[in-house]
C-alpha cells in the first residue's frame, strides 16, 4: 500500500515537472485558457443536471457581482461561498 502511495506521488510529480522543465519553449496554443474554463465548468456543475445548478448559478452570479463591486478576488470568492451556503439554508 505504501508502494502505491509512493508511485502515485512520484508519478504526479513527474507529470507536473517533466513537461515544465528546461529552457526550450513548447507551443501550448490555448491550453491554459482551455483548462481554466474546463476546470470552472466541471467544478461548478455536478452531474446530473439538477435544481442544484440553480443554486450554483445564483452563487456564481453573486461572486461575479462581488468582484465588480469590490474589485477584490478574495472578497468575491468569500461572498460567493457565503451566498451558496445561505441559499442552501433557505432550501434551494
Amino acid at each position, binding site marked *: 500500500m505504501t508502494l502505491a502511495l509512493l*508511485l502515485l506521488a512520484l508519478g504526479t510529480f513527474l507529470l507536473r515537472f517533466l513537461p515544465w522543465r528546461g529552457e526550450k519553449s513548447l507551443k501550448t496554443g490555448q491550453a491554459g485558457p*482551455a483548462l481554466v474554463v474546463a476546470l470552472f*465548468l466541471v467544478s461548478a456543475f455536478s452531474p446530473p443536471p439538477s435544481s442544484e445548478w440553480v443554486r450554483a448559478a445564483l452563487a456564481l452570479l453573486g461572486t461575479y457581482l462581488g468582484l465588480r463591486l469590490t474589485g477584490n478576488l478574495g472578497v468575491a470568492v468569500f461572498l460567493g*461561498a457565503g451566498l451558496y*451556503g445561505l441559499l442552501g439554508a433557505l432550501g434551494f
Partner: protein
Amino acid sequence: MGEGLRAAWPIALGYFPVAVAFGALGAQAGLGYLWIQLTSLLVFAGASQFALVGLLAQGVPPLLAASLGLLLNLRHAFYGPALRPYLKGGPLEAFFLTDEVFALALRTLPGLSPEKRRGYFLGLALGAYLSWNLGTALGALGAKGLLAWPRLGEALAFALPALFLLLALPHLRNPAALLAGGMALGFHLLGQTAWGLFLAGVVGLLWKEPWKGRKA
C-alpha cells in the same frame, strides 16, 4: 513570497473542507493517521488522493489503484508548459502545481515583474499546501464535526468553483476555451471528468490560432 501567500487565501478557504473530508474518509477506511497525512504531504492532488483511498478501501490492488489515480492527474502535464512563458519550472515549483495554483498563477504571473514571480508562486503554493495538510490532519484525527455546522462545509467548498469562475472570466469569449470547456463539461456529465479535462488540454494545445481578448 508574502504577496503570494496572502493571495492564496481563496484557495486555502476552498481546500480546507475538502481536505477534512479526505482525512475523514481515510480514517473511516481504516487507514492509519501517518499514512493519510503522508498522502497529502507527498501527492498533493485531491482527486487522485480520494481515488486512491476509495479504491484501496474497496479492495482494489494497490498498484492498480495508484495507476488509476495517475490517470486522473494526466491533465497536470499541460500546466507547466502553459506557465513556462512566465516562470521556469523547477522541482519545487512543479511539486505544488495543483489545478487551483495553476489557474491563479496563470492569471497573476504575467502582471508581475520576472524577479517577483518565483516568490509569488511559491507563496501561493505554500498557502494552498498548508491548508490542504492542516485539513487532512484535522479530518484524519476525527475533527469532521468541525464541518457539521449547517451548510458550513459545502459553503467553504464552493470557494473553489467561485475562484475558478473569476479566473475563467477573461477567457469566456475565447472560442478554444469555450469548445474545450463544453467538451469537458459533457464528459463530466457522463461521469468521465478526468478524461474530459485531459481532452480539454489537448484541444487547447492543438488550437494554434492566438486569441486577442480583453482582460475582464
